[in-house]
């Protein structure tokens, strides 16, 4: 191998093996095929439905006669416009509140010495795991103007004020409370990655802590704030359960409840629903585009090249105030609704003559739980839900890893398209996804329809954006050169991923798989069309109880679901603790 003069040596050229040269196009092709199957094809079905009178499955494409009547009908219908307006107000207001709460939380957790920060950080993510329908039901039990528990309490202590959560402001409050964690996720990591000396420079310049917050801190993490608020806005746009429970009694309809109505009326108007759904997607797309416009051309890279020490502000006695605020939030979003659910689940009937009736022990019993576990479907649905959850978490986790890696870590052509395709589903409401998948996949040869897998695949498609985004952030924290060093050491791409990326990204992977699991357990909209008698899942059963007008059973079943989730989450947290510790060393 020793060479004397490089120039004098004869040149030998090795041809690159064909297989390796084709690897990248094959890989990208495979991802594109998967995404086409999961996203594009169902969307096309939806689109065909929206611009024609026909059901693409029933009538076939032969009878497809395009007409814009649905769009025209939708655009011309003042009720759609009203629902649209309501949706914008409710979700806009909710987003503003979510940003306020989320920002406050990330500041408290990242930048202050508030006691029990770890606990606060963990607990503040709980709302993410509460199915919207359960949240809506719980808040209607608490905040109904006539019979709400809160109002019963107020009446009892003799205060004249009454809460009315059956209103636009009620919707905004509940939206804001439950979707603050989305904002928190983004802003907390941005704050953590910001060099604290940027803030210290402002303090030394003579600005007060408050001025610093608004002139330096928030402007600097603006991209994260924007991204978080956009995501929470879009997710709120697609939520059905909360406006169904709180908006319907006040006759406030938003786009999702409107879509649900269209599909639930007889005869159902799916083509119109598809048109409204497309409208929803267009709105979402506009917001995403606007966000990218605002951010493009502005560089927010904080200048630091060296590692910095995290800074925590010593609040002195004020830290008990921030602690109190955090507790108040947790009380509102976790404790109160849980109390409401527990009362509802154990009480035969949710009728309170006055506040004393709450403590009437005779009114409490296990009947709802008994009848739930009497129902043979309950155990089937729990079992199915676990299966679907695991399949979704594993398949979705692997796919999200593949996509996230391709987008963030390679220069492969076509990765932009993959990025786009994997973002689209965020904009489609679950109910519509269900129809789209039904239309798209029922006709496929093979036994997909009627199995657990079709549910799992629909969930994978639906939650791929959330998972890819969550994983991407943990990829970005791993320095590129760690991977390149392994290549240089003679390892191929796959083994590098296995020995370097996976161990280092483990906390992120565990977190996103947990997220997937939880989301698929609580997902209702897309299940409704795809489950069969053998594949009933908990969410469907929950809706059955809700639609059966049985708040007691609904609450009892919600509690069962919550307990199962809590146990599983406990296990994964315990599992990922080891990972977190090893990553702390990595930091």
């Amino acid at each position, binding site marked *: 191998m020793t060479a004397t003069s490089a120039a004098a040596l004869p040149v030998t050229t090795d041809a690159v093996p064909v297989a390796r040269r084709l690897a990248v196009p094959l890989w990208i092709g495979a991802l594109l095929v998967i995404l086409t199957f999961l996203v594009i094809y169902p969307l096309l079905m939806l689109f065909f439905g929206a611009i024609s009178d026909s059901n693409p499955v029933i009538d076939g494409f032969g009878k497809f006669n395009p007409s814009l009547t649905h769009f025209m009908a939708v655009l011309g219908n003042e009720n759609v416009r009203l629902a649209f307006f309501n949706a914008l107000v409710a979700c806009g207001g909710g987003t503003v509140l979510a940003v306020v709460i989320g920002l406050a939380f990330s500041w408290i957790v990242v930048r202050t010495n508030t006691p029990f920060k770890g606990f606060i950080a963990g607990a503040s993510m709980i709302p993410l795991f509460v199915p919207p329908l359960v949240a809506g039901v719980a808040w209607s039990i608490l905040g109904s103007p006539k019979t709400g528990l809160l109002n019963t309490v107020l009446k009892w202590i003799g205060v004249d004020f009454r809460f009315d959560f059956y209103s636009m402001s009620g919707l905004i409050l509940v939206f804001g409370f439950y979707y603050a964690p989305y904002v928190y996720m983004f802003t907390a990591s941005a704050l953590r990655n910001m*060099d604290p*000396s*940027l803030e*210290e*420079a*402002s*303090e*030394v*310049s*003579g*600005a*007060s802590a408050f*001025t610093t917050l608004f*002139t*330096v801190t928030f*402007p*600097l993490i*603006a991209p994260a704030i924007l991204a978080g608020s956009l995501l929470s806005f879009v997710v709120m746009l697609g939520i059905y359960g909360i406006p169904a429970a709180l908006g319907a009694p006040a006759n406030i309809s938003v786009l999702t409840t409107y879509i649900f109505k269209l599909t639930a009326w007889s005869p159902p108007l799916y083509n119109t629903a598809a048109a409204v759904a497309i409208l929803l997607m267009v709105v979402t797309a506009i917001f995403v585009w606007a966000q990218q416009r605002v951010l493009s051309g*502005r*560089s*927010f*890279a*904080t*200048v*630091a*090249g*060296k590692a*910095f020490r995290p800074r925590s502000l*010593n609040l002195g006695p004020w830290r008990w105030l921030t602690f109190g605020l955090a507790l108040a939030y947790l009380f509102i979003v976790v404790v109160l609704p849980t109390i409401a659910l527990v009362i509802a689940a154990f009480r035969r009937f949710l009728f309170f003559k006055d506040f004393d009736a709450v403590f009437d022990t005779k009114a409490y019993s296990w009947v709802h739980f008994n009848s739930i576990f009497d129902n043979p479907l309950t155990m089937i649905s729990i079992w199915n839900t676990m299966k679907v959850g695991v399949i979704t978490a594993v398949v979705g986790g692997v796919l999200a890893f593949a996509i996230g890696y391709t987008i963030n870590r390679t220069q492969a052509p076509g990765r932009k398209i993959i990025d786009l395709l994997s973002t689209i589903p965020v904009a489609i409401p679950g109910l519509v996804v269900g129809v789209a998948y039904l239309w798209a996949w029922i006709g496929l040869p093979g036994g997909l329809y009627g199995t657990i897998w079709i549910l799992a695949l629909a969930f994978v498609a639906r939650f791929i954006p959330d998972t890819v985004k969550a994983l991407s952030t943990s990829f970005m924290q791993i320095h590129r050169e760690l991977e390149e060093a392994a290549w240089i050491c003679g390892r191929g791409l796959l083994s590098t991923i296995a020995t370097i990326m996976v161990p280092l990204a483990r906390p992120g992977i565990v977190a996103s798989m947990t997220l997937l699991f939880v989301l698929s357990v609580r997902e209702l909209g897309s299940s409704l069309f795809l489950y069969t008698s053998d594949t009933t899942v908990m969410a469907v059963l929950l809706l059955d109880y809700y639609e059966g007008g049985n708040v007691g059973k609904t609450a009892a079943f919600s509690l069962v679901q919550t307990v199962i989730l809590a146990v599983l989450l406990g296990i994964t947290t315990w599992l990922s603790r080891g990972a977190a510790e090893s990553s702390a060393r990595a930091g």
Partner: protein
Amino acid sequence: MSAALLVEDLVKKFGTGKAAVDGVSFDVPAGEIVVLLGPSGCGKTTTLRCVAGLEHPTVGRISIGGRVVSEPQRGTLVSPRERDIGMVFQSYAVWPHMTVHQNVAYPLKYRRKNTSGSADIDTKVRETLELVGLGEYAQRPVTSLSGGQMQRVALARSLVYRPQLLLLDEPLSNLDSKLRIRLRDELRRILKMTGMTGLYVTHDQSEAVVLGDRIGVMKDGKLLQMAPPGEIYNRPADSFVANFTGAANVLKGKVLERKGEQAVIDLGAAGRIEAWTPQPLVAGDNAHVALRAENIRLGERGPANSFTGRVIERRYQGMQTIYDVEFGGQRVEVLELGTAARHNDGEVALTLPPDSCWAYRDEGQATVD
């Protein structure tokens, strides 16, 4: 406009571990520049941040311009924004979402005392930007600047309100050597021109020497010596200071006798050597003699400490050449300036001027990492 800084018995403990700063006392008269020098982790940054008020001292008193700003024993603690100080951070910490002008105008806008009009602010910002040579860059976003320009923005931002005291935390450590040299000279020029009091932290001795009126050498949270550069270099108080400031050669021997601050040390086969000593050595003590590579005269035979050695290796380093010379079993590095080597391998005369040889008691910690 400029104010004296007085630090007395400063102690700062993080958690339960060893104190990061452990009883440091020094003063900086108004208008003077003091540099804190020391290896990584010795507590320089912590000291500076205590002075700024960004870190709360555990014990000790800090006064700026005669006013006590921090004395935990009495519960006194003035917040950073009320100390009237300027600070240049190691990472510059210029705000990437603002233009150069906005960055520099920021302190003026948000300080309580300067309630000057916006025209006034403009004038001040312009003047300060001229001072640091960025007059034409006012409207640029800071992110489009080079590292050196950003550093000047950070400097301008801390100068614009004419604070009593300027604190600088390794502001040059991220730059390449050419830029570093230019900015360090400029920094001293600007500081002296504005007559500000300065406290500068670095671990680079050449920076310390150029910038400081006095240099304080720190180790493990303690201030070992504080003196003008010449004294630090020519009369280091102990072997750590000597070694850290570049006395790379160590000769081991035994003290033969001592007269005043002068000692004669037996180097074994090599013979005797005369050295200056700041410590009360007595005959028979193990001692080591530290001396700087550039103070050894090669090819010269002086009146004292003159030896004959052999050049073992020559290393050419661009503007200088390093010779490894052996004499009587001792091995020293010698540095000579110029781009061409002047001595060949083989026998050579060498003189170790007694004034630049310092003897210390051998405590077995001759080297620094």
